[in-house]
C-alpha cells in the first residue's frame, strides 16, 4: 500500500471517574460491603437475588426485603484469564467466575484467585477475600479464594 494513503493515527484516551449514585437498595448493598457484610434481596417467590437489585429482573416489581448471605459459596461456572488486562482486578492469571453464595439463589460475577487453571473446577467451594480497606465498592471483595 502507498504509505501516503494510510490513515494518520494517534493515541486517544477516554478517561473519566464516574460518580454513581446508588438509590436505596444498592446503597445498602455497598454499605454492607464497606462493613464486610453481604446483603441480597428477596424476590416474591422467596428466592434471594445476589447481588441485589431494587427491582425484580423478570417482572420489574420493586423489591425491598434485604437479607444476609454467606461469605462462601460454590463456583457455578468460570473462565480462565491467562493474561489479565491492565484494569482487571488481579495482575496474575485468574478466573472470572459465577459464584453462588450460600443463602443466595443467583450468582455473583467476580474473580477467583486460584493461582493456576488446574486448581479451578465448577462446584468448588470458595470464600470472600476482603480488600485491605473497604470503601463501599464491588472491589471491597478483593476476590474469592478456594475455601
Amino acid at each position, binding site marked *: 500500500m502507498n504509505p501516503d494513503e494510510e490513515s494518520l493515527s*494517534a493515541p486517544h484516551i477516554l478517561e*473519566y471517574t*464516574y*460518580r454513581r449514585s446508588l438509590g436505596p437498595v444498592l446503597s445498602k448493598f455497598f454499605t454492607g460491603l464497606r462493613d464486610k457484610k453481604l446483603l441480597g434481596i428477596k424476590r416474591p417467590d422467596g428466592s434471594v437475588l445476589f447481588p441485589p437489585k431494587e427491582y425484580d429482573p423478570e*417482572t420489574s416489581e*420493586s423489591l425491598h426485603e434485604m437479607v444476609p448471605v454467606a461469605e462462601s459459596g460454590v463456583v457455578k461456572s468460570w473462565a480462565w484469564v491467562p493474561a489479565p488486562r491492565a484494569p482487571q482486578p488481579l495482575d496474575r492469571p485468574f478466573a472470572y467466575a459465577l459464584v453462588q453464595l450460600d443463602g443466595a439463589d443467583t450468582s455473583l460475577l467476580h474473580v477467583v484467585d486460584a493461582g493456576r487453571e488446574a486448581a479451578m473446577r465448577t462446584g468448588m467451594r470458595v470464600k470472600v477475600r476482603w480488600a485491605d480497606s473497604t470503601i463501599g465498592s464491588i472491589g471491597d471483595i478483593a476476590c474469592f479464594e478456594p475455601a
Partner: protein
Amino acid sequence: MAELTAVVGIGQTRHAAKRIDVSQAGLVREAAERALDDAECTWKDIDAVVIGKAPDMFEGVMMPELFLNDALGGAYKPMLRVHTAGSVGGSTAVVAASLVQAGIHERVLCVAYEKQSESNATWALTISMPFSVATVVGAGGYFAPLVRGYIMRSGCPDDVGIKVAVKDRLNALKNPYAHLRIEDITEDMVRESPMLWDPIRYLETCPSSDGACAMVLTTEKLAVRCRNPAWVHATEMRSEPTMF
C-alpha cells in the same frame, strides 16, 4: 396509517442538577411508574419498551438500555434504543408512536433520560480528539456562533434570547418537575448574568440535569377506555447535514 394512536399516560421525574437519591434504574423507574399509574396499567401490560438517551459517555455505560430494560418491564419483550443526539427525547416518542401506529404493538412504554451528574456534560460533549484543535467548550461553544448568525440573518431583536429565557423560567414556576426555579426572574437579571459564549449569557442556557420522562402509548381500542387520551395526529422529523 394502520392504527390511530394516543398518549394515555405520562410521567416525569423531579429534575435536578444531581439526583443522588436514585440509581440510574431508580431514575427511569420514577418516570415510568408515574406514566404507568397515569395510564392505569402495570409493567406486565407493556408490549414493548423504547429507551432514549444521547451519548453513552454521559453515564459511562455502553448501551445502557441493556441493563435498564428489565427495570422497565422489558424482560423478554422487544426493546429499542434511540440515540439521535439532542433530539433524542422527541425521537424516542416518535419511534414509540410508530410501533403502535404500525399495528405492531398495543401498548408501548417509552422512556428518555439522562443522568448527567454521573460525569460532566461539558466534558462528554467536547471530548478532544487527536489532530483537531479545540476551539470550543461545551455545547454552547458550538452553538454561539450559529446563534449570532441567526440573529443577523433573521433580524430578530438582540433581546429575544432574554425574553425567551424569562418566559420559560416563569412557566417553570408552574411546573413541579422543573429543575430551575428562579422565583424572581426578570429580564434585567438575565441581561446581567455572566456572558459565557457571547452572545449567550448564563441565564440564557439550559442547566445540566438529571431526569427522565416516560409515556405510555396505546391503540385507539385501548385509548378510548382511558380518561383523557392525547391523540397522535402526526409526527415528523428531519435532519440536516453537519456542514455545507
